[in-house]
């Protein structure tokens, strides 16, 4: 009888310890994990690893200040916040050609608006890390069904820069006029990813000089895609600011319906 009692107590204790240890392990893994999004089984290991590593980097970013627009969209410069932003929008990640041999990632609302599709170009193309993340966060914005997926606007005709020169793809020379490749709001995919990178460039306290320089370089070019004068001015003014955060984030409720492509 006594042996039976002691045996039962021992089993109880061992089980308690085992459950506690496993729960602790799960918590630690969860804390270290940068994404809760499920990868489809056909996502190759190397692509999956790169994406996890990239999001892990986002999860480490810190800064004491952010601009007003960053505060509205992303909240604080806080790695957890950036990862939460992504995880709140992207539940699944799968492989897809995205309709183009040069695509890196896309969202196809008809195939699930909380799913991001990535292509082999995610690792095949040698983009700097922050540029890859700019694409990821650009696409994650397109999952927001309540905001009309932040569809792009048609670039104007003519489409000229501040020097009066036609805005072209700086490499292909293809003119962007008339293409669904612009935004009319700071809150769209081009705008928000530009705001993200500009803030990383200005305020990240634990980013390398390379990351910050890259963030500035890529965001400067993206800024040209925000064609509404007021929106553009708002962003330029925003980048000159920096405010200490009280720490509250709110969603954007009034999307401006735009064009078709994303």
């Amino acid at each position, binding site marked *: 009888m006594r042996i039976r*009692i002691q045996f039962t107590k021992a089993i109880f204790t061992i089980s308690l310890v085992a459950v506690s240890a496993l729960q602790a392990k799960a918590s630690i893994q969860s804390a270290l994990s940068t994404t809760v999004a499920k990868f489809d089984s056909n996502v190759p290991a190397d692509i999956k690893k790169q994406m996890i590593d990239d999001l892990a*980097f986002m999860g480490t970013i810190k800064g004491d200040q952010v601009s007003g627009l960053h505060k509205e969209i992303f909240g604080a410069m806080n790695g957890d916040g950036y990862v939460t932003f992504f995880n709140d929008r992207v539940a699944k990640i799968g492989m897809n050609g995205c309709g183009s041999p040069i695509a890196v990632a896309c969202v196809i609302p008809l195939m699930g608006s909380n799913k991001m599709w990535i292509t082999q170009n995610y690792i095949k193309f*040698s983009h700097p890390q922050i540029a890859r993340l700019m694409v990821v966060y650009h696409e994650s914005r397109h999952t927001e069904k309540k905001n009309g997926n932040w569809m792009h606007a048609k670039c104007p005709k003519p489409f000229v820069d501040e020097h009066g020169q036609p805005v072209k793809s700086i490499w292909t020379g293809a003119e962007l006029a008339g293409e*669904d*490749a612009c935004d009319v709001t700071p809150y769209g995919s081009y705008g928000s990813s530009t705001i993200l990178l500009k803030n990383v460039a200005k305020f990240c306290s634990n980013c390398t000089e390379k990351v910050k320089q890259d963030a500035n370089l890529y965001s400067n070019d*993206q800024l040209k895609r925000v064609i509404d004068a007021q929106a553009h001015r708002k962003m330029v003014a925003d980048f000159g600011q920096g405010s200490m955060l009280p720490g509250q984030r709110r969603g954007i409720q009034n999307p401006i319906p735009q064009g078709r492509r994303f």
Partner: protein
Amino acid sequence: MSRKNRVLAVSAAALLGAAVFFYYESSDKHAGEKVRTIHAQIDRTPQPDIMTMAHQDVLNVGQAAPIAAKSVKVLLSERAEAQLQMLHEILNSKNDNDPRLDSELKVLDEDLRKQMRAEYKAIRREKLNERGTVVFLLGRNLKTQEDFEFLNDVFSEPRCLSLENCSKESLVRDGERTHTSSVDAITLAYPQFNALLALEKVLKSKDASSDEKAWAEKVLSAARNSPVPEIASRADRVLAHLRTSSSQ
């Protein structure tokens, strides 16, 4: 068995069951993430360690045009060897936020810079981030005329015509071309952008010597002939601003 012991036994069994459940929950076998490779869709061309290629005489990697590289192995100090090894590790890791980029790799001695310049030429052209990173690091250590001449060489490179193959222009004419052209275009000229930014910093720096500024200005002047329009026009703007500032 008394009631108390029955309760204890049931609790123990429940806890044991929970432990087994948590074990399987955390196991990768049941996470649905087992990966299958789809060979038909994915380019499985093995990508060699880009930096170990640097000591081979002729490199012909993947679909890129062959790059003949008579790489010179410069005699390096122990510290420089360690720095070079570190650089190889970081480039292969694709972690641009490795803090060593700003600590151990901040200051590069002349021999190391010479070795890095040689290795740069041996890196496959499509490895734009890797090449750009080397230019970035060297761009922080512009001390001698050779350092500036290297940047001139970077500006003189033929255009990289596409991200998948620098020797071949992309024939893609779909909407993605304009959707992501901002990102792609900068990456295609990423080494050149890093060279440009390094020279701008020298010209703005109060610590740069007059020789360094003169060399920087000379290289920027040559960059106005870059085959990349954005590089050429930006070099032009920087020089125009410089002349305006100096005449005031």
